[in-house]
């Protein structure tokens, strides 16, 4: 995309605004939820990165944190929730089960949520330490900063 001074500054400001005010939707299913709770609480504190507000409605959330195993039964629900979110939206897959099915390679578990929805950041671990989740969030913030204004309609499809 053509960059001149005004549009790049605008994109920089937009990126800055978006990355430091993420409202996240914790789609928690399993054990990784415990580490998410630790990351959200006082010891590790996700709020200092601007992402402290949990929004339990997909309409109000920018970021969906898929935390824990997604089973085949849960897959339609994850897809519905993702589609209900308004643009711009990002997805972080937290934990080995969300990334790739984890230790569960069987009839009941989806082998990675990227088989259902597009994913921006993968945070591996079983469960990942809270610091790893925060690093995933910081990596996403870098990504948001670098992405331009009209990337979304060109790149991502369901």
């Amino acid at each position, binding site marked *: 995309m053509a960059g001149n001074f005004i549009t790049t500054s605008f994109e920089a400001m937009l990126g800055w605004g978006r990355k430091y005010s993420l409202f996240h939707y914790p789609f*928690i299913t*399993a*054990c990784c939820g415990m580490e998410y709770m*630790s990351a959200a*609480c006082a010891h590790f504190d996700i709020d200092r990165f601007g992402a402290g507000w949990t929004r*339990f409605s997909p309409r109000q959330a920018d970021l969906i944190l898929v935390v824990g*195993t997604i089973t085949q039964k*849960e897959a339609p629900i994850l897809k519905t929730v993702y589609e209900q979110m308004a643009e711009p939206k990002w997805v972080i897959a937290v934990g080995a089960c969300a990334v790739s099915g984890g230790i*569960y390679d069987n*009839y009941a578990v989806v082998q990675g949520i990227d088989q259902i929805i597009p994913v921006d950041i993968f945070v591996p671990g079983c469960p990942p330490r809270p610091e790893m989740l925060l690093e995933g969030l910081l990596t996403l913030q870098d990504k948001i900063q670098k992405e331009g204004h009209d990337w979304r309609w060109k790149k991502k499809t369901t």
Partner: protein
Amino acid sequence: MQDPSPPTRFAAAARPESLLINMGPSHPAMHGTIRIMLELDGERILNSEVEVGYLHRGFEKTCEARTWFNLLIYTDRLNYVSPLINNLGYAMTMEKMLGLAVPERAQVIRALMSEVSRVSDHLTCLAAMAMECGAFTAFLYTMKAREFLWDVIEQTSGARMTTSYIRIGGVRADLHPDYAAHVAKALVETRKVLKDVHGLLDKNKIFLNRTRDVAVMSQEDAIAYGWTGPCLRSTGVRYDVRKAQPYLVYDRVAFDVPLGERGDNFDRYMVRMLEMEQSLRIVEQCVALLPKAAPGLTADGMPPAEAITEARRQKSGRPIRLSPNLEGSEKAVSKDIMAADGGAVIPPKEETYTSIEGLITHFKFFMKGHGIRPPKGEVYFAVEGGNGELGFYIVSDGTDRPYRLHLRGPCFHIVSALESLIKGRLIADVIPTFGSMNMIGGELDR
């Protein structure tokens, strides 16, 4: 083969003039994933149906494809707020089948770690229950205490949550030399938090209105539903596996079993609060039963490669400097933390490096087709989990894999009573009721 699924009886029985609402499976108060379908008249629940299975991860079928040693990692992820107790249940069931004698020190370490795990289970349960009723401060305080408890577990086992620390035959590694200081700090902080939470919630008018006399369960119904653990004790029935069929060192430590009276949400909350204090008492007594700390890694030994080369000719008896991630499992301590049976436990690394018998034992333990071989038969053993009687039913056909492994998950039975508890109540009562049950998806759905 087509299995015709009948329509849900909830949908079939729903009246056309009432409001049908779906709670879950992705819902802040659903502790993971469970779906409650509600039929409402205004705010009053006329009928409900609970749908589970959203976290069914095929634990039992996967375990049939794994070796006895390997499937330990899956047991961590069952009741994932108290993972060490699941490890313990599985390990003790296998020890019953194999007839292993676990050393005394390992028993005390296991009891200590189980109780630390139990306290973190109750803290998480009450944190979620309080937060969903609006008491966010209680959530933050209890999470703070949980961090100190997880520091204790992490220092010894290396992981905060899913540790696979308690193994068949004993524990993976001895306690860290400085563990007593961490435990003392965790006890002080947890007791401070418990005192604060008591002060915030016990006489809090709002909390009492939401939990007192809400979702009352009678003793007969609780037993008919198969309730065990804190939920059963809140109705007044005195049944705790640690007292009824003592295992580990629970017959040697003094602790009380708190009972409730009315079986309502508040009693379930209070029983858990009092149980945490009792668990901390047990932890203190376990620390007193372990006088000496582990010696720690030998800093001035020879590296393993040199030891292996030397052992080909002659054994000098010089100590070996093991890798830091093997700390706690050296030969000097292994007789205290692991059973002596060569077929069921990993031999200490010094033996593996320097003697042919040790090498072959190690090889046979891990090689596919070899490994632990329990006798043919079936066995059931239960421990007191965070939610009640956590039982493992294992069928062995003499090979290196289980023929059938079944978990008796306590919260399966507790949640099966949810529909009857919320019928006729307001929709807002679902939240503290469900929170006080401590549904853990990994244990419910397996």
